């Protein structure tokens, strides 16, 4: 027998689930009648596209329900699943409504996605948004600014919609508000993991990749109000940090298997949605504000070099902030940046005598027996310490 709080929570989450895993809406079918611009992970300055009155659509792969029939003929089997499934969604027509496709130079496979798009979908403009790998040069912000200006003119050219500073500033305001709520949710999960599970928080945030931000903000508000009402039954599970969700998304089933035995109190899931870690200044040149925020107010990931953010240091900071006792280091199969960091971090944690579990996943996984066994053993080893 569910309490009213619980049932309203479930109804919110069901709506999120529908959105989070929904296909791209057909042209015009979308309630707000917007054009859609799709982008490949990790980060994209959504505000700019939002300011054009369009809906930025984070391409998060095909999950475990997309059957890859056509893409395997185009991409080698030694390339990560998200490249296969995204290409499949293009080839099987699911992404037809997109007015354009962007990728960032996060890795070599991602750069190839632009080539693949150009060859297979000439009618659908595609481009590389050349975000810089050198974040430490004094010239970096200026370069990002120039590249964002280029983005503005490209989007205008594709869609015939001009992008004014006022509009961008307004979008920044909307996104700042949304980011504040996301941060609230994240800290709730960190401080009271029994109140909101990572799977739930994941659905809430992932829904944002499929909605105009103002709508998502409303939805987040409703969810947070409900969650505050939710009665909490504290449970004795080890607090762990989860890494490995910055690009290809681990299947929900994997997150749940982990949560059966552990509390995930910090993670990098859907990192692109949370890349900017503070408010973006709402005064001054809005494009500059976005460019500066990309370099100066941002998270870290295996696919962005920044001498100020050594990977080991960032992880240790994450551990302390989240008061976690152990780490789960996951990497997507065939993700070279992920695998490189996984090794470096696991060696560092071993040296620091911090327990860590190394996992390998694919978005298309459907059976989790072996993973459950590993996670349970990990939890058992933490509990019987």
């Amino acid at each position, binding site marked *: 027998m569910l309490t009213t709080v619980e049932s309203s929570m479930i109804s919110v989450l069901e709506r999120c689930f529908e959105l989070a895993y929904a296909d791209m809406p057909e042209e015009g079918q979308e309630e707000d009648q917007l054009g859609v611009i799709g982008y490949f992970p990790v980060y994209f300055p959504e505000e700019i596209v939002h300011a054009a009155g369009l809906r930025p659509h984070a391409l998060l792969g095909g999950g475990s*329900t997309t059957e890859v029939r056509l893409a395997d003929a185009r991409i080698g089997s030694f390339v990560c699943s998200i490249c296969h499934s995204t290409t499949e969604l293009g080839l099987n027509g699911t992404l037809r409504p997109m007015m354009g496709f962007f990728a960032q130079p996060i890795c070599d496979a991602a750069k190839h996605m632009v080539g693949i798009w150009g060859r297979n979908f000439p009618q659908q403009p595609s481009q590389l948004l050349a975000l810089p790998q050198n974040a430490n040069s004094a010239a970096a912000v200026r370069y990002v600014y120039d590249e964002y200006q280029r983005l503005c003119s490209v989007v205008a050219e594709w869609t015939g919609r001009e992008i004014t500073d006022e509009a961008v500033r307004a979008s920044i305001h909307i996104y700042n508000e949304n980011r504040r709520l996301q941060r609230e949710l994240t800290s709730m999960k960190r401080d009271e993991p029994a109140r909101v599970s990572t799977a739930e928080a994941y659905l809430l945030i992932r829904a944002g990749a499929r909605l105009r931000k103002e709508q998502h903000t409303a939805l987040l508000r409703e969810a947070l109000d409900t969650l505050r009402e939710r009665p909490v039954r504290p449970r004795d599970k080890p607090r762990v940090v989860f890494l490995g969700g910055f690009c290809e998304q681990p299947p929900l089933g994997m997150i749940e298997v982990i949560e059966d035995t552990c509390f995930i109190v910090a993670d990098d899931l859907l990192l692109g949605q949370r890349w900017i870690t503070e408010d973006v200044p709402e005064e001054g040149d809005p494009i500059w504000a976005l460019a500066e925020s990309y370099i100066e107010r941002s998270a870290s990931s295996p696919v962005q070099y920044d001498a100020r953010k050594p990977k080991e240091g960032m992880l240790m900071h994450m551990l302390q902030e989240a008061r976690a006792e152990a780490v789960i280091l996951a990497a997507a199969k065939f993700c070279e940046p992920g695998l490189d960091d996984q090794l470096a971090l696991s060696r560092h944690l071993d040296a620091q005598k911090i327990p860590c579990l190394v996992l390998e996943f694919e978005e298309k996984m459907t059976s989790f027996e072996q993973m459950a066994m590993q996670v349970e053993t990990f939890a058992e080893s933490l509990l*019987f310490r």
Partner: protein
Amino acid sequence: MTLVVGIDIGSTYTKAVMLDEEKRVLATALRRSGFKPAAATAALYEDLLTNAGVAHQEVTYIATTGYGRYMIPFRHTQITELTCHALATIHHFPTVRTILDIGGQDIKAIRIDERGRVRAFRLNDKCAAGTGAFMEKSAWYLGLTTEDIGPYALRATTPVEISSVCAVFAESEVINHLSTGVAPEDIMSGAITALGGRAVQLMRRVGLEADFALAGGMTQNAAMVTALEAKLGAPLHRPPNGLGQLNGAFGAALLGLRRVERLQTEGHEIPTPGGDGATGETVARRWSTFVPRRKEGQATPVEQVRPLISA
């Protein structure tokens, strides 16, 4: 008197061990898991009782392990095979710190402490899986039984190299060598060397702390043991008198015994079977099993994560 049963429901075999409070093995039993592990286990449990000559109600506590650990309704608790192997091993060999477990589907390396608690463990990459099964298949191609592999490979004079990490390609290599007239024993020994090398690599990842022990299917394979000991430059402890295969079940039984002792010293009575959900607890809702409303032809349900237990 206390009678504790450990059951290890593996993907190919299901094994059971019955211990008394002195940790003496009263009876063991083994069956193919088949397609209906739950049924197989029930039958196996009967075998065990018959072998031990005891009745249901005399059994104090039942702990399950292995991939089917949640499928058995009449258990008291479930625990993973890694934890079980660790306990069993430290019981037999108090000095062991690193365990290697070569199974049909995967290789596991486990680092344990002096009390048999798992400190670190590592499984092979997906692309290096299926090693045990690969040995079986190779043997099959060579017209040998799994038991023959060891003695056979020891006769090798000029072992060939099997370089592929992937079991499927390795199999192709075996076939190709065979078809070019290479002597089976040389192929087999090559396969064993390759497998041994990968196993030791995995042990390195957990620190390679001496002493070492071998668990799982390969314990009886002389050639494999020799290859591993050569690579390690140290002896490999192996579970005594055929307990090798039963190691998981034995560990589960030991853990059950610990639990019983704890409950008794704390003055609790033994709970009724059905799993005390130490780790089997499931979240309020499995979103991963929730099927979204999709356009026709799109809706494809995601697999259930694992059988949910109803306590």
